């Protein structure tokens, strides 16, 4: 057989296969006739309730509440009393006329589809509509659940859900028009668990679209599976308290349980109130217009210079690299002179001093020496090489990269590389003096409040941290094992003792010893802390404070960052220290009420 004939044989064979299958489905098998001549299937979807979000103590942060939507199948609509429907639903008559005109215009495209007509009607309107529903064929009321928030806590943290749009469906074919999806915060992070699985009942309809009976007696139906509940690590009361303290201020507070890495509170101010969340669509324009960007979650997205709290990191790296021993003393006469007439200034305190006192008094001059010795380390051939080693150390503290928390939209801040300075100043043309501001956590460093809080937790643990996270293990939800692993820094844990002692002295050393954080002292709690004041090119200095307590076996580490508020001890310190006290003792002692009052009554905007 030549090749032409072989190909012709193939052609006939394929045609025979097609005809064979056609013969089977059209003549032999009756299944398709049963399906079809009585008709086709209608899917009635059943929406599962979305999972509830609990706080760490079992308080409901996000629950569900019933609401009513009206849907319409334009093909089924018969002439009706427009005015009566408008009255029942409490909408303008024109609204209904416009919708109906729209349906007429696109009737081909719409076909037999059921569309959403009106959302979130009140229970009263629903009852009124239900009584008269028989007068409006084609319109149907649907019950669905909306989010409800018993606590005004954690707007940004919880995030919002909204209806999927066409773009989203294209990339996520498992969603259908009318479904809701978590867009930000926990709702987005835990979407897979929270959403549950939609169910459906299949009905047969005849060729005139009348629903007849359940398809195969419901054998193919699927029940909805409710979404899984999520237990977050947040302490609702602490979160709420933090939000109150931060009212009228721009900035963040993050509290972490050092022994687990669980985030206890995560406040971004100004934030979003929870009653806005449940109906975000209505408020969206107003939120987007707000110049202070309430949607912007500063805790994980803002990149700030960490200021003096970063001195801890530099000190520890110096110890690890052997360029600093705790007993080293350096003089400081109101700063550190460099490059001729320049001086990096410092405030008045005793001089010379050792590492412990330098941390307690937050001496700028001292840490210039520390950083200089790290960069001029004879071990390394060039400043750039020493700098890269320094950078590696810094990264091991969780700076300059994403920490890998389970919170969506986390950013990594910024720690420059030697390549960056090579580019700016030329290769080999920069030295310690050029980048002196890194000594004290200024300059090109950017850190998120979460990273700063993580530093506090690392200090509390004396050298390691757990990746901060906001979801706890619970029934049906197992968190990634990486959240249970200790993350050690590259600095030996033995070096942390001195630094922690310095933090203790900063709070408890007494004003006379130059401690910068003495007002954070809470009798009986052994608070350790470190202030910071970060210069802000856009206005007044930013105020930073990190602390943890108790000194031994710490239960909580807090970082507060208040923008444009001046000296760290003035604003960030009371916020962080009140959070700490509230969490550990449940109340604020009489002697510290004045701090709380001052915060609650001061608003910067």
């Amino acid at each position, binding site marked *: 057989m030549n090749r032409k004939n072989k190909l012709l044989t193939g052609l006939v064979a394929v045609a025979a296969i097609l005809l064979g299958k056609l013969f089977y489905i*059209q003549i032999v098998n009756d299944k*398709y006739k049963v399906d079809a001549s009585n*008709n086709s299937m209608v899917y009635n979807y059943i929406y599962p309730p979305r999972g509830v979000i609990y706080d760490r103590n079992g308080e409901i942060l996000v629950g569900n509440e019933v609401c009513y939507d009206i849907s319409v199948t334009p093909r089924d609509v018969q002439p009706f009393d427009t005015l009566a429907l408008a009255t029942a639903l409490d909408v303008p008559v024109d609204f209904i006329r416009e919708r109906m005109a729209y349906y007429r215009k696109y009737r081909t495209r719409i076909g037999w589809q059921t569309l959403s007509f009106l959302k979130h009607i009140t229970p009263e309107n629903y009852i009124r509509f239900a009584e008269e529903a028989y007068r409006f064929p084609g319109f149907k009321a649907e019950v669905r659940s909306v989010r409800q928030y018993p606590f005004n806590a954690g707007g940004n943290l919880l995030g919002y859900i909204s209806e999927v749009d066409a773009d989203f469906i294209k990339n996520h074919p498992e969603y259908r028009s009318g479904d809701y999806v978590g867009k930000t915060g926990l709702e987005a992070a835990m979407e897979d668990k929270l959403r549950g699985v939609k169910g459906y009942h299949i009905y047969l309809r005849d060729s005139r679209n009348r629903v007849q009976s359940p398809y195969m007696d419901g054998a193919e139906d699927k029940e909805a599976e409710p979404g899984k509940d999520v237990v977050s690590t947040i302490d609702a009361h602490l979160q709420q308290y933090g939000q109150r303290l931060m009212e009228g201020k721009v900035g963040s507070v993050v509290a972490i349980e050092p022994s687990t890495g669980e985030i206890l509170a995560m406040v971004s101010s100004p934030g979003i109130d929870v009653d806005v969340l449940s109906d975000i669509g209505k408020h969206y324009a107003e939120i987007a217009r707000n110049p202070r960007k309430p949607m912007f979650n500063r805790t994980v997205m803002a990149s700030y210079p960490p200021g003096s709290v970063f001195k801890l990191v530099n000190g520890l790296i110096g110890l690890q690299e052997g360029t600093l021993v705790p007993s080293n003393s350096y003089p400081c006469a109101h700063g550190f002179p460099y490059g001729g007439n320049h001086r990096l200034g410092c405030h008045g305190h005793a001089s010379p001093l050792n590492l412990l006192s330098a941390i307690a008094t937050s001496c700028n001059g001292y840490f210039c020496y520390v950083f200089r010795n790290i960069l001029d380390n004879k071990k390394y051939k060039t400043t750039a090489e020493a700098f890269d080693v320094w950078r590696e150390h810094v990264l091991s503290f969780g700076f300059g990269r994403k920490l890998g928390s389970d919170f969506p939209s986390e950013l990594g801040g910024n720690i420059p590389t030697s390549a960056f300075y090579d580019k700016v100043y030329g290769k080999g043309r920069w030295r310690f003096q050029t980048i002196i501001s890194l000594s004290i956590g200024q300059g090109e460093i950017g850190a998120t409040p979460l990273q700063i809080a993580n530093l506090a937790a690392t200090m509390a643990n004396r050298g390691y941290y757990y990746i901060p996270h906001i979801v706890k293990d619970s029934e049906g939800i197992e968190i990634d094992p990486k959240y249970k692993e200790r993350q050690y820094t590259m600095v030996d844990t033995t070096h942390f003792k001195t630094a922690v002692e310095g933090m203790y002295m900063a709070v408890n050393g007494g004003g006379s010893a130059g401690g910068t954080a003495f007002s954070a002292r809470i009798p009986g709690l052994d608070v350790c802390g470190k202030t910071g004041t970060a210069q802000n090119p856009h206005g007044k200095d930013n105020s930073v404070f990190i602390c943890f307590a108790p000194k031994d076996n710490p239960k909580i580490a807090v970082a507060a960052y208040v923008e444009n508020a001046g000296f760290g001890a003035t604003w960030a310190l009371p916020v962080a220290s009140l959070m700490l006290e509230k969490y550990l003792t449940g109340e604020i002692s009489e002697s510290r009420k004045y701090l709380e009052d001052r915060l609650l009554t001061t608003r910067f905007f």
Partner: protein
Amino acid sequence: MKGIDGTPGSFDRGLRKTVDWRLVICYLLLVLIGWINIYASIHSTEPASIFDWSARSGKQFIWIMTAFVLDILILFVINPRLWEVISPYTYVMVFFLLVLVIFVSKDVKGSHSWFELGPVKFQPAEISKITTSLLLAMVMSKPNFRMSNRKHALAVAAIIGLPMLAILGESETGSALVYVGFLFVLYREGLSGWWLFLLGMAILLFILTLVTHWWISVAVLFVACVAFYIRVLRQSRREAINFRRLALRRTLLAFAAGVMMVFATGFIFENVLQDHQRKRIEVLLGLKEDPAGVGYNVRQSMIAIGSGGMFGKGFLHGTQTTYGFVPEQSTDFIFCTVGEEWGFFGCLAVILLYVFMIWRIITDADKSREAFTRIYGYCLAACLFMHLFINIGMTIGLMPVIGIPLPLLSYGGSSLWAFSVMIFVFIALDRQEKKYF
């Protein structure tokens, strides 16, 4: 009007004998059937006259009339020699359009394949079938062309592969799949039949691995390789010993490649294929039930066709196709309307028309004394065959859902024009030859 050779009168003399009227009649019948069924498929949602220009049937009427104009131009006005001469230029130009469209087109259900110039939309992938066929025929008809020459084979692979890749880049997997059909042309022109066998084996192994276990695939592969080796040995009993060694080496190579393919199947399935493609294959192979999602189209389409029975429900009396249960019913799923309203006999008639047409094209082509005409004819037959098989196979659940039109039947100007031009270029080539011999 003047004849091709310029002498008045040759037109009249040759017309009856030179044009393959059987092909033309097949063509006209299929176009007519398409038009009627497009009207039926939109009948309930747009009840209007079949000539109503705002409805699809009316638009298709315009496409048909303009296609006829094209057909007449090709048959009587354009010198058929021209096609061979311009083939490199048209190929390059259309290839350029294929690439360009990826960047300038709007996203239509995930694919980027339509140019939009005001109200006119067209898909370069449809024309590319013609230009690829022409260039392929031009190159392969060169007197010194040998399929066994490695350089020549590479050139041919490039001619077929480049537009195929560009179309894949447009996410028009179905249109790209049609190019696989050119393998049949290469086979006719001397490509070893083992390549077709290899392709068949690869598909078989892929499906076997997905549906059953990897070890069944490996067993089948092993048996196939042993059979291959024995067969080669038997053919070469008198051959030299190193031929046997070569055969053994090739068999082992093929076996190794096959095993790798079996183990790569899972990876390809999960990572290379896109989500919707994976789901469609899963539904086809019965690995997953998905009556609401991906399975919906196929299920509805099979219900529509299956409910047609022996003689169908009659023109405009279909319930499934007219009530919008079948999606894309005037384009990719037009065969559902045929199946539902005209029944098994309607399907039989349509399929026989196609088979007859492809058969005629192949025999005409094979008879031709000009290599260009022969190869081009086979290309045309291959394209028609691939479209026919993939499209009808999809509507009756033999193939995964792959969106390509049914030639001449489906609604749409690009497709109708492209197939009209393609068919009539062949008829013209065939005619011109018959005039001289």
